[in-house]
């Protein structure tokens, strides 16, 4: 009789603990974005001809995209997504975290500072929250191809073949979202939703809430 009571008192909390862990894994009360890999370090020049480095946006959430000024229809999708995200930022409570958009041109021969300025003006990119940038050809290959893992190739006639892609990076410089336009819908709704998830995680980075978020990473609670 006595041992049965002890079994109850030990067993019930144990069962509750196991059920709690299972419920966390199944219902995912907290969602997180995966910490995919490091985003590359870079030294570029922006649309004002000013030096622009990966350290300039450390601590900020950044949405990157990659294009060239002559890409026309191939860029319409990602361009519109960038414009939409830019115009809908008011929907996300960013708290103390700054959000930036960065458009990197992989065609430095054509996309001079003047061309980047014209492009940036056409998109309403102010050079602070949204920057257009490019750099030296060899460094761009390291940054875009090896670092961001976005493929592009010059075709010999001044045009490029490339994978239209958007990349979301957190303040640590860790890639948290990759949106390949042709294989995965990279609409603004999804990116705005991911920004919400990311800023929520940043707000709850410390204390008990921080532990819960780390547990969410362990249980792969990804949207």
């Amino acid at each position, binding site marked *: 009789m006595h041992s049965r009571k002890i079994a109850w008192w030990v067993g019930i909390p144990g069962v509750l603990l196991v059920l709690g862990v299972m419920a966390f894994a199944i219902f995912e009360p907290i969602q997180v974005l995966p910490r*995919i890999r*490091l985003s590359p*370090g870079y030294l570029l020049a922006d649309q004002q001809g000013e030096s622009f*480095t990966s350290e300039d946006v450390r601590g900020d959430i950044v949405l990157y995209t990659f294009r060239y000024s002559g890409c026309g229809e191939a860029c319409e999708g990602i361009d519109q997504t960038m414009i939409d995200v830019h115009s809908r930022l008011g929907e996300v409570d960013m708290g103390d975290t700054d959000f930036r958009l960065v458009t990197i041109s992989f065609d430095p021969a054509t996309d001079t500072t003047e061309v980047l300025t014209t492009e940036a003006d056409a998109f309403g990119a102010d050079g602070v929250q949204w920057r257009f940038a490019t750099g030296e050809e*060899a460094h761009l290959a*390291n*940054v875009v191809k090896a670092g961001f893992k976005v493929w592009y190739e010059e075709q010999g006639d001044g045009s490029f073949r490339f994978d239209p892609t958007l990349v979301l990076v957190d303040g640590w*410089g*860790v890639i948290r979202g990759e949106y390949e336009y042709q294989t995965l819908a990279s609409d603004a709704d999804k990116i705005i939703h991911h920004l919400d998830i990311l800023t929520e995680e940043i707000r709850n980075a410390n204390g008990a809430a921080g532990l819960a978020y780390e547990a969410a990473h*362990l249980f792969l609670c990804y949207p």
Partner: protein
Amino acid sequence: MTRTPKIIFGVLGGLVVLGAVAYFFVLPRFVPYVFHGSTIQSNQAAPSVELDGPNGSTVRLTDYEGKVVVLYFGYTFCPDVCPITLAKLDRAMDILGDKAEDVQVIMVSVDPERDTPEILEQYMAHFNPAFIGVTGDTNAIDRIATVYGVYYEAEEGSDATGYLVNHTATVMVVDKDGYLKLVLPFEGTAEEIAADLNFFLR
């Protein structure tokens, strides 16, 4: 004492014992370790490193499988950030004690023009004889630094220092299986670095 208070005290006592056991022995196994840096969850091996090491050797990241590798990007003429970081890493090795034998600290030079393997060897030995400095041609350094999230740029210095090199000051940790797992900030203390490294040495 009547039977009811006995039961209440018994139950309360049991709960206290159960709580203590859970707090000290069970919960630590379930509570995830919170790192002092940012973790990486990539299922791909850390970007390859193949550069010039001491005594004409070629140093590859894969040479250290089975060890935790601490990667840092700096240079020997660095006036402040690099010596502070390397001193902290040395202190972290002291804290780890015997476990430090399973850790390899490697500094990749972001100043390949001035940092020869010989100069790097002498410099690193000032901090810890087990630390290694590596260098290479500018293209190789640019590729490796870039994919490890490191920016660097030469800038004018004084007559005494010559040019300086601005660079990202984070520290990267590659686990025993060759996966990049952690990025530590410059601000981290030796104790925090040691605690995080200890996690990968379990």
